[in-house]
């Protein structure tokens, strides 16, 4: 029964992308390194008033099961992202250049995570 007409949010003004309403904390993207030697991986996002609280919140939200040895947070507005419309020009040229993919090598097990 959730047609747009009956939405309880019909009169609610949507927040512009990348901006924050005054009463809302900024959005932070969270990166966690699970083990020494691996790189930080994006695990999700959360809201927090400042960087220090963002790290604390990340500890509570994303590392409850002993997942991390290091946490990075970055305010989402500071991330520059490629736009989906440029997909063709950015990525497709590499499709027919098979020699760019390292599929012709056997990687010894001793190398570990690549």
């Amino acid at each position, binding site marked *: 029964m959730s047609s747009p007409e009956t939405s309880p949010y019909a009169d609610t003004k949507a927040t512009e992308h990348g901006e924050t309403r005054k009463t809302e904390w900024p959005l932070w993207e969270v990166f966690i390194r699970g083990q020494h030697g691996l790189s930080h991986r994006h695990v999700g996002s959360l809201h927090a008033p400042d960087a220090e609280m963002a790290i*604390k919140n990340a500890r509570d939200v994303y590392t409850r099961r002993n997942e991390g040895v290091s946490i990075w947070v970055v305010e989402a507005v500071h991330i520059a992202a490629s736009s989906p419309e440029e997909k063709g020009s950015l990525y497709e040229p590499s499709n027919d250049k098979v020699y760019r993919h390292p599929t012709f090598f056997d990687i010894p097990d001793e190398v570990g995570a690549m």
Partner: protein
Amino acid sequence: MSDALFEFACRMGDNTLVLGHRVSEWCGVAPVLEEDIALANTALDLIGQTQLWLGLAGEVEGKGRDADALAFRRDVWDFRNVLLVEQPNGDFGHTMLRQFLFDAWHLECLKGLIGSSHDQVAAIAEKSSKEVTYHLERSSDTVIGLGDGTEESHARMQKALDRLWPFVGEMFVSDDVDAAMIAQGTAPDSAGLRAPFDARLSDVLGEATLVPPEDDFTHKGGKSGVRHSEHLGHMLAQMQWLQRAYPDATW
């Protein structure tokens, strides 16, 4: 001698049990999702510590009661938590200020217990102190953030401090149980924790621009079990009803 140790373990375990339950009351209704999860984590840490302390109490007592029996089958007058932790949550700021006052005492207490002559006490303190170090960091930051925040948040935090201040002193009252614990080398003197507590308090409250009341009157009776406030009974009714209505229920 083991009576005093039973009493002491109940005090530690009842503090963490009652505060853990209070904090868990925020689950699902905290102001933001991140705080909701953080509060639930804190509550779970405290309940975990309760299992250890009340488990030890049951063992020392030797009457076959385990941590569950002590938590769910005792009534108000047998509880030995300080009055501070049974006070209702109030608003979020009030809850965090109560948490800060307790954490600041709790960490000093655990630091003292790590050197305990009693192996189990020392081990529980060692494990708990890592969790409580984080609790204190978090509650201090929140008290500073809200105290030194907007006019509204500052006013609420000052009101919470005025309201909770008369419950601070009880944590540092020494009695016969303390004396027995000191004599055995099991625990440090409660009164001796006041100086480091005050030092931390003045740092954090100073940054938070909050001023503690000058009156040092203190309510007592929780830790000795003589007189709990009216709030504990209501909380226990909520917490214990299932085990009371269906004894030994399992799933």
